[in-house]
Structure formats: C-alpha cells, structure tokens
C-alpha cells in the first residue's frame, strides 16, 4: 500500500481526500487579493544593499577604459565590482549544462559584444544612489 506522508501537509488539508468535484480555494489566494503575498522586491532585510549594473550602450565596442572613480566617490556606494573582481562566471547557461567551453564573462573584460552587456556592478545603500557613468 502506498504510504502517504500526511505529516508534511498536516495543516493544509484534512484526511478524507474527498476533493474531486468541488472547488478548493488556493492557499495563496488571500495574500494575492490583499496585496500581502511577498514578492522578491518586497523583502526588506536588515543591512540590505542594492546592486545596479552598468551596461553597454553599444552593440559591439572595445572597452578602452572603465572609469569608476566618480561612482566610487559617490555617497552611499559601498563597492564597485569590475570584471577583474569576478574572473570566473560560475552561472552561465553553458556551465549549467556542462558544455565544457564556457567563455561568457560575468562582466565584460575588454570588449562588449551586445547592447546591454554588463560592464560594472555597483553596490550601494539605496537604489537611488548608483549613478551611471559610461566610458566607452
């Protein structure tokens, strides 16, 4: 006989399992209609910082110089992350499927290859803080 692990769902349903043929309210519905379901953007953690990414405005361009001095001096900016800080990208699609060759950088190194490619990531106290200053 199939053993049902009832303990896991103990607070979600009673035991008679006579659910077929009648409507059952979803557990998350009340949160949805009252706007209280927490989404990613609704979390406020203690000491939470925000990250913004400066992206390429060009479809294909050489990165001669990335000038982060102004960003670094800005009030509320904790850290400016550049390509050299994250030399290995552990999360590319290719690495997830064990493709072997995996040459997609987290942040562009000396060239950008598509419009919107990440170049620099800025960690700051608030979302408003990160400023954009795009060298080319």
């Amino acid at each position, binding site marked *: 006989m199939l053993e049902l692990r009832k303990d896991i769902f103990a607070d979600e349903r009673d035991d008679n399992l006579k659910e077929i043929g009648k409507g059952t*309210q*979803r557990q*998350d*519905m*009340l*949160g*949805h*209609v*009252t*706007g*209280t*379901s*927490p*989404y990613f*953007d*609704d979390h406020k953690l203690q000491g939470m910082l925000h990250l913004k990414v400066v992206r390429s405005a060009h479809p294909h361009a050489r990165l001669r110089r990335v000038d982060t001095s102004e960003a670094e001096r800005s009030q509320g900016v904790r850290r400016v992350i550049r390509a050299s800080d994250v030399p290995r990208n552990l999360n590319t699609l290719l690495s997830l499927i064990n493709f072997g060759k995996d040459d997609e950088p987290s942040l562009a190194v000396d060239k950008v290859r598509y419009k919107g490619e990440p170049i620099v990531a800025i960690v700051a106290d608030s979302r*408003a803080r990160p400023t954009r200053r795009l060298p080319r």
Partner: protein
Amino acid sequence: MAKTPLQFRHNGRDVAIFVDGGTNLLVALRELIGDMTPKFGCGQGGCGTCSVLIDGELHLSCLTLAETVAGRSVETLDGLKEGPNLHPLQRAFADNFAAQCGYCTPGMLMAAKALLDRNPQPSRAEVVEAISGNICRCTGYEPIINAVLAAASGGRARA
C-alpha cells in the same frame, strides 16, 4: 539634496513624509510609507501593477511625481478591505480564480475599483476597457473580467 515635506491622505489616514525631488509616488508609498501593495512592474507606465487611486481616479504611481499628491487622497490595495472583511472585488477575484502569481492583482483590483465606483453595472466591454492598461502575464484575462462582472452583480444585490 534638500528634501521636500509632503502630506497627503493614504487610505484615509494622514501621512507626512520627506521626499527627494523627483521621487515618484510608487517609491514614496513602498519605501517611505511601507505600503508594499502597489507593485513595481516596469517602472515606465507599461504594465499597470503600480496603479493607485488619486482622489478616486486611476493613476500609475510609477509615473506620478510624489509631490503632486500633496493634500490629495491616495488609495491603494492596502486600503481596499472593509475592516476585517474582503471588499466584494477581492472576494470575487478569489472565487473566480482571477489571480495566479498575483503580481498584477493590486493594479487589476484598483482599476476595477475605479470602474465600479463610477459605473456599478458595467458591461463586459467596459470592464475590458477599464483593465486595458493592466498586463497580466499569467491568468489570462477571462477570469479577471468574470471576477469584476461577478463583483458588480453582487454589488447590485448589496446596494
């Protein structure tokens, strides 16, 4: 940067905050007042999930400068419940499966409220028109339209 004092009514309660110039109403509500019910979807007027009522009229809070609501009345989903009870629209959304992930729901409900407040017995076409600025990525619009119509006919029985 100098901050500007700002007072308005938020779901029937007077609130007073200080805002940076250029702050939009969505950020003011979520980050300064702590009302997380209006959602950030696109931040550029395309999705409607940030919808709130200003003096009863539907507005996209992401495109509204916070300072423009000084002295006015702002309603969000947080104020829709009638005491401990769900508003008929909330009931109807729950009963008609009109939310899946629920991210568009705050905007849908406010758009629907704006409609029913001025037109308690809308036609189906009027409902479609009323929520046409709100994008739902998952439910499909049919259950949402049905929910608004159900709330409207329920409202007739109540009134």
